[in-house]
């Protein structure tokens, strides 16, 4: 007997939650307990009184599972609102990465040239290394990191995705 798996789609979910102890564990734990995937997760408080945080989760699953994830998240007492940005309409998403690249000579120049193409900023440098700051979609960051790997990638830190719906309305 073999275990079957279903085809899945990427979805970006945006949640507002009460900013209280344990909220991240509730969200992350729900995903592990019910066998859902987390590709990335970001969290930070977004109100003046620090009462509400926004959590952005990139997940993947078949439509029925995504629907369940939404319903299960919405059921948590501390969750205010859950929006599937992927379904809600056009939205922007960005993540930020810090990319450390080491190299000398031609590699160093090529790294700077590629960074310029990707509009990455140099935020730290030594004679033999750079740290680039790049923002963009996950694909763009992936591509940049892929190119740097060929030049002399040392390490990468990524924030995961944040997203907002386009236009004048809040979710």
């Amino acid at each position, binding site marked *: 007997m073999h275990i079957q798996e279903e085809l899945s789609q990427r979805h970006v979910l945006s949640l507002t939650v009460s900013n209280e102890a344990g909220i991240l564990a509730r969200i992350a734990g729900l995903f592990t307990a019910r066998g859902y995937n987390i590709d990335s997760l970001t969290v930070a408080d977004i109100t003046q009184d620090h009462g509400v945080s926004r959590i952005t989760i990139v997940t993947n699953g078949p439509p*029925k599972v995504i629907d369940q994830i939404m319903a299960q998240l919405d059921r948590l007492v501390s969750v205010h609102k859950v929006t599937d940005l992927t379904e809600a309409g056009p939205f922007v998403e960005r993540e930020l990465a810090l990319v450390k690249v080491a190299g000398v000579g031609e590699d160093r120049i090529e790294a700077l040239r590629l960074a310029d193409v990707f509009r990455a900023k140099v935020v730290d440098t030594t004679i033999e290394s750079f740290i680039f700051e790049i923002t963009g979609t996950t694909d763009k960051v992936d591509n940049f990191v892929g190119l740097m790997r060929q030049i002399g990638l040392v390490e990468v830190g990524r924030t995961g995705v944040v997203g907002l719906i386009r236009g004048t309305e809040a979710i």
Partner: protein
Amino acid sequence: MAEKSGADILVECLLDLGVEVVFGYPGGAVLPIYDALFNHPTIKHVLVRHEQGATHMAEGYARSTGKPGVVLVTSGPGATNAVTGITDALMDSIPMVVITGQVPTQLIGTDAFQEADTVGITRHCTKHNYLVKDPAKLAGVIHEAFHIATTGRPGPVVIDIPKNVQIATAPYKRPEPVAHASYRPQTKADAAGIDAAVEMLAAAERPVFYTGGGVINSGPEASTLLRELAALTGAPVTSTLMGLGAYPATGPQWLGMLGMHGTYEANFAMNQADLIVCVGARFDDRVTGRLDAFSPGSRKVHIDIDRSSINKIVDVDVAIVADVGSALTDMVALWKARGHEAADLSAWWAQIDGWRAKKSLDYAENATEIMPQRAIADLYTACTATGKDVIITTEVGQHQMWAAQHFGFDAPNKWLTSGGLGTMGYGFPAAIGAQMGNPDSLVICVAGDASIQMNIQEMGTASQYRLPVKIFILNNEYMGMVRQWQELTYQSRYSNSYSDSLPDFVKLAEAYGWTGIRIDGPADLESGIRAMIDTPGPVIVDCRVAKLSNCFPMIPSGAAHTEMLLDPSQVKGSMTDEAKALV
């Protein structure tokens, strides 16, 4: 404003909330609360023998009275012992508030004596939980906890209170009700769903009401409304294990329970229906059988207060997110306002009568051994004859299914069983809790010889509080359901399912100051049951039944509703790996 200690604030809140009884066990981290209780004799405290017992007692109390069950336990092992009952309450949507002591805040995280991460451990087996680090916040949290436990889809809420927070003082006044920032369960249905459901019911040729624990949780009014809607439409009614009693077993449209050990007519009606109206049930795997063969030709309406239950397992055509009672009120009103008459369902009923003629609950009687089904049937007859209010609890296993099949329930809140989690050890403490809440009722725990041993220590609790609960053990010297599955699936290799070294239950009863009765054969059955009912005080009955009886009918794992096994002759004794891998 006068300040009170955290422990006094807790007790004040319990009084304000109308709490009459707390099931608990003291320990180091709750001593301040126990001292506060000492000064408030109006709250009755039931001292249990094990914290798991306290949680099931609270469940039994809650399910039989409709009020939330309250549990008080200490930190560390007190809290971890409560986890099974908390999970059980979550699975079966039982309103329960569990107060746990915690080590003082400055010791949290230091692996202190009797420290456990209670909010971490219970995060996924509660509806919500709290760690309260400030006595000034305690009153608000306690009132909110009761609100969350009892509204929407009910469930358990844990409040973890460090010992120094119990001692520290804060101003106290009774909190005003406040709208919760994020918790606002939808209880009133959208009109469009009600409209669609009523029109589909009016037009259906082969409708079935598939009802569940949500009808019971909604309150007795919901059961009345279900009966009214069933009468108005003429549609047959089946129920899950958790919903028994919402529609009377003696009612004319009753099909019996559905699912794995449900009746032939209930499962075939589900399979052949053109409309299923699911009322407060959740398409559990015990109910659906093989999913791709589940009620293939029907349109489906699902009424549930929990949005996440909808389309979780089975896709439905009309989703109604609402409290069952509220949705049924709207449906009955709209049915009448539209002037609908019950459709002519005679062809459908004729088909159902054909399935009924299979008499799927029948069993071969035996002159020398008591058939377990006979024992339940006789218990039912004897209980009915008393004219008393009867509450039945069960443990988990064959006896539970036989009780569900052969004991008829005509009212809600009279049948207490662990459905979702399937917790052996539930029934006896639940009976104690039910008896606490219903002192004049005849409360009987139908048990198996194995299950009863899982919380048998609570016999002392029943003795201490003079609770006249009855334990009726169907003793077949096996973990019967495990043995049955081994017979069906593993060519009768009975690995560790024999109940060796059973105690002498009669002597055990006597040791606790109970009455013990042993029923050895069919000749003693009626008189033994009568003696149990007539004997004042707690009674344990060791009813020796046929050892190798199987619970039929049965839908084997991975099979469809139409592939029911009706009797032992249909058992093959082995299964495919795919079927074996299913629960």
